[in-house]
């Protein structure tokens, strides 16, 4: 597997400009002769499709939703980071780069992270130009708040709906291009397979989810912007339909899958309340600006939060990490919560939560100011739990959230398969082993608005077009038949267990054996359990109906089938990494104080898995080199 990251030569600060300067261009009048397929219409997909259509390329865009605006970027709450230094608090591109790299526990590519910080300011300019209603100060300037893992305020926000507002900006840009007939949009179409011609990605097979019809779509380049796969844990903060199928099927065709086991557990989700739940709802990290996290000092304290005096509360984040306190990064905050819960100090009806308490902030700043900052989050909390957080402390707990892992990409966001670009959460590139809050919206936007337009054009200029031959069409027909046969196989099992029930079991195994904490014996068990579950899946799956027309159960079954294989890959990846880094915490590798212990000598690399013909996976490594910074022990004390 060729893992040349193709990072431009020269000093860190000049790499991106150099890349752009050296990128090949296509004459505006020739661009329409090149066709690009974009799969996914979240922030990364919509922004890339709109930007490339504006440049004049021919675009075909696919989403499995009924409208591009439903993509899960819409649910991001807290904000988007940018190194604007509007607060005069010492922020800079360099500081943001350093915070992000350190936040990821030095397991990301230096050049990519620097570029993310470098492009952040332009993203805010772009979004403001689109009319995104960011929060404003009274003088009309943009307002900022702080997020975990940093000591500056660089997060821009639109109340608790920043993802929605940024996505609508990108969606509107996309719909504008559609109105101008510069692109073709296929809603309710799900990608089934990637089409390759001599190793180059040249199209996809898509299924019309309303009619069941399979069709081949040919192009000169394919962009996957299909999001993350945290939903593999079943109970997660993700939307019900989030899945790994597009990237996993590309992996099966030869694309490298990088760091599959690096999944972030968000510390401020609502806790699980019972077995009927289908998902967990996130409460924005921004709440940690003013909310204080604690558990009672006494085990199994039956008193209400408000009745427990100050001296009997353990503000464990402030105790363990005095310099960052409640704004410790997510991996650390989540593990610290788990440590208290497992030690028997958990609160709530199932003793599986900790308190996020606003009483001090309410007293000091008043309810009106708190409502202005977090009003809709408090409202959401009440809608779900029926509890008024102005009067009672919130109950929160860690939940599966973001996948730092994804398809391997080079500096231009192209996978090891030529012509296959992977954007946003679907790729692995910028967050290392742990993502900082408010960096995911940023990465999705930067990938789509600013990187793909340059790198995709450069690729097309160098590689040229791929003629649609009879041979290509015939090969696609074979793929279509193969895909239909795979679905038929699932339909023919006619067992007793639904796809959702298998998914629930899969999530349960992963939470217990490959979740916030990992250890060798449990990981080996997880692989065995998953293999057994997979066997049962193919013997006892229940999918009603047929391939024609609307069949949600068939869609789910296909996604769970991929999740089962990905689950095994995740456990394998976690098993091989004999160190703790970021969100990947191996019990065997910790300091005396229970902090993650990295092993730079042996594990300063990104694992990249190659699919093997026998269904197995082979490990490749992309070594990480740090030229401008020195890796250090990651401390937030």
């Amino acid at each position, binding site marked *: 597997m060729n893992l040349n990251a193709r990072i431009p030569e020269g000093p860190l600060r000049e790499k991106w400009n150099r890349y752009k300067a050296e990128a090949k261009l296509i004459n505006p009048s020739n661009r329409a002769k090149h066709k690009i397929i974009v799969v996914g219409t979240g922030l990364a997909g919509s922004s890339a499709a709109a930007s490339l259509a504006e440049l004049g390329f021919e675009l075909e865009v696919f989403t499995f939703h009924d409208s591009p605006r*439903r993509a899960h970027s819409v649910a991001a709450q807290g904000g988007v980071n940018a190194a604007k230094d509007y607060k005069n608090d010492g922020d800079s591109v360099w500081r943001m780069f350093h915070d992000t790299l350190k936040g990821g526990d030095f397991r990301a590519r230096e050049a990519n992270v620097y570029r993310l910080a470098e492009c952040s300011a332009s993203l805010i300019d772009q979004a403001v130009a689109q009319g995104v*209603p960011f929060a404003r100060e009274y003088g009309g300037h943009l307002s900022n708040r702080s997020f975990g893992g940093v000591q500056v305020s660089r997060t821009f926000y*639109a109340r608790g709906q920043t993802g929605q507002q940024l996505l609508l900006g990108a969606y509107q840009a996309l719909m504008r291009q559609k109105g101008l007939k510069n692109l073709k949009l296929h809603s309710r179409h799900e990608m089934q397979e990637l089409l390759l011609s001599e190793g180059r990605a040249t199209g996809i097979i898509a299924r019309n989810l309303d009619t069941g019809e399979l069709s081949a779509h040919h192009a000169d380049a394919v962009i996957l912007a299909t999001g993350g796969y945290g939903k593999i844990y079943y109970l997660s903060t993700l939307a019900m339909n989030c899945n790994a199928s597009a990237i996993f099927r590309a992996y099966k065709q030869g694309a490298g899958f990088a760091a599959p086991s690096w999944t972030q557990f968000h510390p401020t989700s609502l806790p699980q309340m019972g077995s009927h739940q289908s998902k967990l709802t996130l409460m924005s990290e921004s709440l940690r600006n003013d909310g204080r996290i604690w558990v009672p000092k006494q085990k199994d304290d039956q008193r209400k939060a408000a009745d427990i005096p100050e001296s009997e509360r353990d503000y464990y984040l402030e105790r363990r990490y005095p310099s960052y306190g409640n704004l410790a990064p997510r991996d650390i905050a989540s593990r610290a919560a788990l440590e208290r819960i497992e030690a028997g100090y958990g609160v709530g009806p199932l003793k599986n939560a900790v308190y996020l308490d606003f009483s001090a902030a309410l007293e000091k700043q008043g309810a009106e100011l708190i409502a202005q900052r977090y009003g809709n989050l408090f409202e*959401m909390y009440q*809608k779900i739990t029926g509890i008024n957080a102005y009067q009672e402390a919130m109950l929160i707990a860690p939940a599966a959230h973001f996948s730092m892992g994804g398809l391997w990409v080079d500096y231009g966001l192209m996978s090891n398969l030529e012509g296959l670009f992977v954007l946003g959460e679907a790729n692995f590139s910028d967050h290392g082993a742990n993502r900082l809050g408010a960096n995911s919206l940023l990465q999705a936007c930067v990938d789509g*608005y*600013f990187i793909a337009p340059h790198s995709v054009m450069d690729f097309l200029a160098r590689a040229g077009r791929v003629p649609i031959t009879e041979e290509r069409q015939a090969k696609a027909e074979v793929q279509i038949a193969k895909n239909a046969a795979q679905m038929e196989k699932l339909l023919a099992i006619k067992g007793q267990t639904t796809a959702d029930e298998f998914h629930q079991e899969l999530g349960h195994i992963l939470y217990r054996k490959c979740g916030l904490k990992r250890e060798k014996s449990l990981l080996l068990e997880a692989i065995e359990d998953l293999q057994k579950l997979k066997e049962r899946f193919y013997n006892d799956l229940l999918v009603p109906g047929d391939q024609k027309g609307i069949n949600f159960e068939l869609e789910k079954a296909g996604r769970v089938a991929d999740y089962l294989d990905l689950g095994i890959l995740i456990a394998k990846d976690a098993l091989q990494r004999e160190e703790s880094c970021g969100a990947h915490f191996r019990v065997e590798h910790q300091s005396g104080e229970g902090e993650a212990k990295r092993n730079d000598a042996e594990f300063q690399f990104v694992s990249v898995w190659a699919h093997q013909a026998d269904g197995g996976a082979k490990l490749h490594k992309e070594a990480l080199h740090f030229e401008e910074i020195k890796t250090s022990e990651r401390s937030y004390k």
Partner: protein
Amino acid sequence: MKLTLNIWRQAGPQAKGKFERFSMDDFHPDMSVPEMLDHLNRNIMKKGGDPIAFESDCREGICGQCGFVLNGEAHGPGKRVSTCQTHLRSFKDGEELYLEPFRAGAFPIKKDLMIDRSALDRIISEGGFVSVNTGPAAEANSILVGHQDAEDAFDAAACIGCGACIAACPNASASLFTAAKISHLALVPQGQVERHQRVLSMTQQMDLEGFGACSLIGACEAACPQGIALEHIASMNREYRKAWWQKG
């Protein structure tokens, strides 16, 4: 908890629909309405039946994907909630519920509780944007927006595109949906240049899609999960008159 559910079943856009009745006694009061349907569907499938087709994605009230008429009200009895934020604890044990799709001429029923809302996307395509390409935008703080204007623009921009306003309206008017976008962009400086053309094009598309006229009843505001105010429709009408006058 026991509930009797009357659910709209319709095989396809042209098929004749009818209510089908289900009774189950092991619902949990903390289940959301989509979770209730998941539970019911599991039961239907295990008995060899065809599960109810419905859409639901984020299950936290922001994607706009879900939405049914529950006992005659779009998104059910709660105020400022979407269907996925409606929990069974809002109903009484033993209660009978009626679930129907959002109904409007411009929202053809695809199957059971699923509808086609692409008309809303086409309205946005006709001007629900600022015509700015990706590229060197001006420094963000060079465009000042007053605190209150930004808050008001946000209130309008918060629309999730679920279509409840249309389902609640006796005229099946899309005025609140369209007005929310027009208001959002009219309230910020970035939206000024195309302000007049925007309102003319978007309202024209709204009519072409077959949505009804607005008679300011206000059922839309009451059903809106984001609480988008009726006054945006008044602003849209004002914008329209100004644009029409200027056009001559």
